[in-house]
């Protein structure tokens, strides 16, 4: 019915797979630019670095696909890390710590959405307030200082290997597959994108919008907990500073990956590619010995470009709609 000009079709393909395209370009450029890039050690390093953001990104893909947002996950992650540290000090076994913290993460995530749904407020505002609360609680619990000597199980999650695969990468692999399957094949996943596409139409069509939104936040809370464990495990202690840049990095990665800010569709695999884009840029700048402060500037610019591209893609679609 709708005829696309070939140039438009190619352009759209690039826009829809922009993260993968960027990854390929960066990969090629870095392979030629520095000899260190292609060493197994460096590549493992990149995989390790992106794994934490990518795992949160899986949950965040669901969140953006449902046309919502959460600014509190960074501080939530930090709070959960501290709680895990305290439970370690209290001498609880690893499974107990994991289960308690998962329940805490899911509860906090669910709470964000519950308040938003109950009081019909924008999640942006609620999570802005919640992140302050989490930060305060974290400082209260930790007294402002990190907790060393965390449970061995947590350390294993951050530093362990299964065969030659680091644990964080293994977690990422398993969770990405699970996330992709849930989003594209289950009724929950369909509910999520329907709510993001048109919440009112979804409601009239018999979808429980509130339940779906809370479900998404619970899922996000769960992956945030796992990421908190991996982050703490990697440094072997519960830090009071983790999660600082998480929200921005994750939103950027998810949007570059092809999940629109406005919701209505989502791709978990794309998010991983989006994380890889940011990871490759950081890694490349590191290898080329670019100043750390400049790296932050570059990252900001990339986020800006990602958001502009996102809006641009939507506009391009709108244009095509008008033509038909």
């Amino acid at each position, binding site marked *: *019915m*709708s005829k696309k000009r070939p140039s438009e079709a190619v352009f759209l393909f690039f826009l829809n797979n922009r993260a993968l395209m960027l990854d390929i370009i960066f990969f090629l450029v870095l392979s030629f630019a520095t000899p260190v890039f292609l060493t197994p050690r460096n590549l493992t390093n990149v995989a390790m670095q992106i794994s934490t953001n990518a795992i949160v990104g899986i949950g965040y893909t669901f969140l953006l696909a449902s046309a919502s947002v959460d600014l509190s996950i960074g501080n939530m992650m930090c709070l959960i890390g501290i709680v895990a540290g305290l439970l370690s000090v209290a001498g609880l076994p690893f499974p107990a710590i994991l289960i308690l913290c998962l329940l805490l993460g899911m509860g906090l995530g669910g709470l964000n959405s519950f308040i938003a749904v109950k009081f019909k407020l924008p999640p942006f505002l609620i999570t802005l307030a919640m992140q302050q609360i989490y930060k305060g609680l974290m400082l209260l619990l930790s007294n402002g200082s990190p907790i060393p000597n965390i449970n061995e199980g947590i350390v294993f999650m951050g530093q362990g290997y299964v065969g030659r695969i680091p644990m964080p990468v293994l977690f990422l692999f398993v969770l990405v597959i699970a996330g992709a399957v849930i989003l594209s*094949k*289950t*009724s*929950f996943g*369909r*509910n999520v*994108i*329907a709510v993001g*596409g*048109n919440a*009112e*139409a*979804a*409601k*009239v*069509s*018999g*979808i*429980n919008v509130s339940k779906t939104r809370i479900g998404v936040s619970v899922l996000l809370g769960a992956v945030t907990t796992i990421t908190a464990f991996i982050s703490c495990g990697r440094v072997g202690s519960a830090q009071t500073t983790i999660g600082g840049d998480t929200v921005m990095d994750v939103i950027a990665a998810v949007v570059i990956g092809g999940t629109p800010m406005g919701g*209505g*569709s989502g791709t978990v695999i794309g998010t991983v590619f989006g994380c890889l884009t940011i990871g490759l840029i950081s890694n490349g700048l590191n290898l080329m010995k670019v100043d750390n402060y400049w790296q932050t500037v570059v990252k900001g610019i990339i986020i800006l470009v990602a958001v502009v591209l996102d809006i641009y893609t939507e506009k391009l679609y709108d244009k095509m*709609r008008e033509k*038909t």
Partner: protein
Amino acid sequence: MKLFEAKGISKRFYSNQALKSVDFDINAGEVHALAGENGAGKSTLMNILLGTLTPDSGEMLFEGKPYRPRSAHDALQIGISMIHQELELVPSMTVAENIWIGRSDRFRCHGLYSKKRCEQETQALIDSLKIDISPQAVVKTLSVAQMQIVELVRAISYQSKLVIMDEPTSSLSDKEIEILYRIVRDISSQGTAVIFISHKLDEIFEIANRVTVFRDGEKIATRKTEETPMPELIAMIAGRKMENLYPKKSAPIGDVVFQAEALCKRNTFDQVSFQVREGEILGIAGLVGAGRTEIMNGIFGISPLDSGSMYLNGKKIVNRSPQEAINNGINMVTEDRLRLGVVRKFSVKLNMTLSYFDRICRFGFINKKKENAAAVDMASGLGVKTANINMPIWSLSGGNQQKVLIGRALLTQPKLLILDEPTRGVDVGAKYEIYMQCSRLAAEKHAIILISSDLEEVLGMSDRVLVVCGGTIVGEHNRGEADESVIISEMFGILPHNTEKGGRPT
């Protein structure tokens, strides 16, 4: 001399001819009413007059000179302003700021905006109109009626030669209606022309010098109100019935499927009771805002009922959400296709199966094979014109989108199907096909409620018609026994027992 004159104005939206070579004129100092059902063409003509729509053909003259507005701003400049049905005020600003919005340059004093001068001038204007509103009041603290008055003052502040009022009394109390009438009389006696759009016929007789009746995009007639009896006006609005436009087959009517008893929703509708039977199409006639959609939204759980009981196949049901309603065996295609209907980013298939995918899940996984098959079957059954079901929904015409939404409802196998304005914004061909489907569904023993602003459609398709006015059912007519002018009178709230003021409908 005529203040404004339009000749041979035509406008087409896709395949829908909204205006067919319409002539219209108004003199200075005249109050000219426009009457007609929803969608008859009144708003389209006004939008053309205001420059928000461009006519396909025809010409307009303002004070004898050719008039081709490109925006509402052009219209304002030349001296035409409009009071919209929806309020267009900024709630956080004061009355004075709202009235002079976009014109704050007038109150510049030593290069700075003078709030005082603005308020003084507003006070003078308000005094001259003999109304009681403070210029300093913040608009959000006012009542809806007061806001309407502020809108009116704003329109007058442009010192327009022509003021258009679109149902200005719809949210006013009697006292404020009197104020409005007085202002209308005042400004018209000073030479301002007023176009007065209204669904209340007694209002038209009260205030207007002349009335122009529209029907199906055509101008039926322009008459002096004093020479026109009410029944004649009603007959003009209703028009004559066209035959064979509605492929209604008579289906055997069975047992009662759905029964509503004393349904109430505060300030919206009251004591609504009716039944729908198997194989029956129950038509609901009434004007927009009469409570038709609100009653159905109550039944379907979009805005749950305050009180009353519902029975489906004799079993009492409660619908607190659409989800519950669908599970109970009721489904509805809402009137607002864009907002409450299609998911624009979804394909035809995903739109079609939006209420269905949940029912074909095993362990939470959607059975995609079944989903696909169901969507293909339904699309071909309803004659959805699309290259394939994976096309984006926006690539379809309005009529075909509507069929997809009907398909969405049908996939849940409802015992009662509610169709609210199923043919709004749909071209004639697709309309006919939707009627065919309604008829077929009734023959397949579905019970159907059909709501429409198009009276001919309701009469053409229904086995029985209920008329809704002011939140209650005011009339019930069987197929063939329904008299159009009686129904129109009921729709417009002129019941046979209180027509002393405006004459007697035939």
